[in-house]
Every structure is written in C-alpha cells, then in structure tokens.
C-alpha cells in the first residue's frame, strides 16, 4: 500500500480528466443521438440512409479500433483541410482528449440513436396533434413537446448509455489520454505493483458508475413525478 504514496494526487487528477471527458462526451452523445434519431424518423431518404450507415458502422466496430483510427487520422485529415485555406499552417491536430471524447460520443451516440428513435415513436400522437392545433411550428413541436415526452421513455436505457460512456473513457488511455488507467501504467513502471494500481483504477470507476446510477434514479423519479397520482 505504501507503493501508492505520491500517486494519490496523480490518480485524483486522472479522475478529473475522466469526469471532463464524460461531460463533453455526454453532451455530444445527446447531440449525435437526437440528430440520428431525427434523421431516421424523417421522410428524407438521404438523411435516413446516412443515419442508418452511421448506426451500422459505429455499433459494429470495436471501440478500440475507432479510437485508433481517430487518433491516427485526425492530424492528417485536419491539417489537409486547414491547408486548403492557409498553406502556411504546419499542423492542425486535436489532442487525445477531443479525439477520444468525439470517438466515444459517436459510438455511444449510435446506440442512443436507436434508443431515442424508439422513445420518439412512443410519444402519444395526441400530444403532437394538440401542438399542431395550437399552431406550433415543426421545430417548436420538436423542442417543446416531443423531447420532454420522449425523454421520460428514454431515461432508463439512456442511463446504460451513460455507464458505457464512463467505462469507455478507460479505453482512451490507449491513445495517450492521461486519465486514471494511464496514471496506473506509469505508476506500475516505477513501483512494479500492478494489482494495487489497477484495483485503485477499478474502484475509481466503480465510484463514478455509482454516482451515475444514483443520478439516473433521481432523474427517473423527477421525470415520472407527474404520473405518481395516476399510478
């Protein structure tokens, strides 16, 4: 246990990185998921095929492969794009934090697309008709009527998506993100105690999962509070 001396603060900062990635990836996941679901439900054939392609690709490929591709592809692709407008630019790159967050958001977002799609289909048509009758535009109906109604249905499976997000963060250590698993590997290089270090990492992630699960329980209570009497 003494091996951990001096490493506690590194693990702490690693956990902060995990939390940061989680928040960023969560926002992006919701974005990708809603966009994907909207595309799949729209009448537009092109949008539907793109969304279908998106879900098939990102649900069928191993996460580690997506991360490695993003990591190696980002600098070259972005630099090439940037050099179109300004050839002087030597490089444009995104650090592992963003490459990783975007990658895992795309992956979990493809699952979220299906979840949101199912939830949107579960919104009572009566509510939509009422919104129409009141003269709300398509966009306003989407934001003020569909999303709140759908959110209640989507919450339980979305809780699982959030858990996937936090756990996929560990994979980003493979492309150099200095989160807890990365810290553990460096600690092992100097202390030679793999079991101790990895158990600490496991405990940290377990802590995060617990917080997320509890938050989902609270959110579910809040989302269903208007149904309490009806039950």
């Amino acid at each position: 246990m003494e091996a951990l001396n001096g490493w506690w603060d590194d693990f702490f900062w690693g956990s902060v990185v995990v939390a940061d990635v989680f928040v960023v990836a969560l926002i992006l996941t919701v974005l990708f998921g809603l966009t994907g679901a909207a595309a799949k439900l729209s009448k537009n054939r092109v949008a539907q095929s793109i969304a279908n392609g998106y879900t098939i690709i990102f649900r069928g490929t191993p996460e580690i492969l997506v991360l490695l591709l993003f990591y190696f592809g980002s600098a070259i692709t972005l630099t090439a794009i940037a050099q179109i407008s300004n050839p002087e630019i030597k490089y444009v790159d995104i650090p592992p934090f963003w490459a990783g967050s975007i990658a895992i958001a795309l992956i979990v977002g493809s699952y979220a697309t299906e979840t949101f799609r199912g939830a949107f289909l579960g919104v009572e048509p009566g509510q939509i008709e009422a919104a129409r009758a009141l003269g709300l535009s398509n966009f306003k109906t989407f934001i003020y009527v569909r999303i709140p109604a759908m959110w209640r249905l989507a919450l339980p499976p979305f809780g699982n998506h959030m858990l996937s997000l936090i756990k996929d963060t560990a994979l980003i250590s493979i492309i150099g993100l200095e989160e807890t698993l990365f810290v553990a590997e460096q600690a092992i290089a100097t202390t030679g105690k793999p079991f101790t270090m990895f158990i600490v990492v496991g405990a940290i992630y377990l802590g995060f999962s617990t917080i997320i699960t509890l938050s989902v329980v609270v959110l579910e209570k809040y989302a269903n509070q208007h149904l309490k009497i009806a039950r």
Partner: protein
Amino acid sequence: MIFDFALIADSIPKMLAGFWMTFELWFLSAVLGLALAIILLLMRISGRWYLYAPAMAYIYIFRGTPILVQIFIIYHGFPQLEFIRESIFWPILREPYGCAILALTLNTGAYVSEILRGGVLGVDRGLKEAGAALGLSSTHRFIYITSPIAIRLALPAYSNDIISLMKSTALASTITLLDMMGIARTIVAETYAPYEIFLSLGVIYLILTWIIQKSIGLIEKRMSRHVRSEA
C-alpha cells in the same frame, strides 16, 4: 492520401489468420458467460438474501468497471499476488488466453444475467398465476412457462450483448494475444500504415457483427411466429 491497396490485399489474409482466435474467444466466453448468467439469475430471483446479495454485488462490480481494467487486473495484477501463483489455477492464469476468456466470461456473465432478469420480469404475471392454478410447482412453472417467454423477450438485448462481446475480444490484443486486432496492430507497427490496416479490419468486424445480428434476428423471428404482429 493514396491508399496502398497492395498492402491491404497482403494484410487481409494475415488478419484473417487471427479469425479463429477471435472466434474462440467470443464463442467460449459467450457459452461460459451464459452458464454463469443463469446461475447468477437464479441466485438473484431466489428471494434468499444470502444468495441474491452476493449476486447483486458481483453484478454491480462487473457492470460498474471497464472491461479493460478487468482484463488488466486478471492478467497483470493477479500474478503480483503470491497465492495466485501457487494455486491450482495458475496454469490457466499464466496463459493470456486463459486470462482473456476468464475476464470476458466474468464480464458478459454479469450483463447477460441482468438481461435475462429483464426477460423474466417481463413475463406476464397472469401466465404464472395460471400455472400455479394448474398445480405446477414453482420449478416447473419456471422451466416450462417463464423461461420460453423470457428468452424470447430477452433476445434483442442479448443479441446486443453478444455483439458487444465480439467487439470486446479486440481488447485481448492488449495482453499479447494475436487475434485479428493483435495481428493488425503488429502489421501497423511494422508498415507504419494505420489507415489501410485499421479500416480494412473495421470492415471485417462489420461483416462479422452483421452476420451475428442477422442470425439472431432469424432466431427471434422463429420464436415469435405465434405472436400476431402489429399492423
């Protein structure tokens, strides 16, 4: 960015040589994991605290920590402990293959048991009551009434999980196993051509997951043939 097609043509057979390893990892973990999941499920719904408490704790831990961390703890961490090196399990834990199967099995077992439990909970209570009214014992009710329906209900979620399992086998490459991902990383390390190799590997995984999905879809269709489909 020119694609080196000759390299792809050369590498695909090499990567496919790892297919058996990938398949074995996936298949063995799926079967053993299913057995473990059934045991956990029975413990979970037994109603006896000394059975369901450990089961819940196990599921909580294995679903709450990243699979990569679990793999590392088993492969790198266990040998740090004296009693592991001297136990009868050491021959299995010595080999990365044994460690990978163990980690994948323990992980998928936790997830599948929850999926099965969701299926069991989804069985209409009326059916169970009818069974009781007919004089069937609770074991008989479970085997002949609950299980077939629970399995059918759980199939969609189960198919998602075994596809996830297929993707998780790629993580075995981090503990020296030469599955398809391991071979791909070795080729990339020697040829410095990440895009060609990783993109073609992605396509291979896509084909594999597509096959799994279609197969389970067929099983689902067959099991639901008596259910009237919604117009």
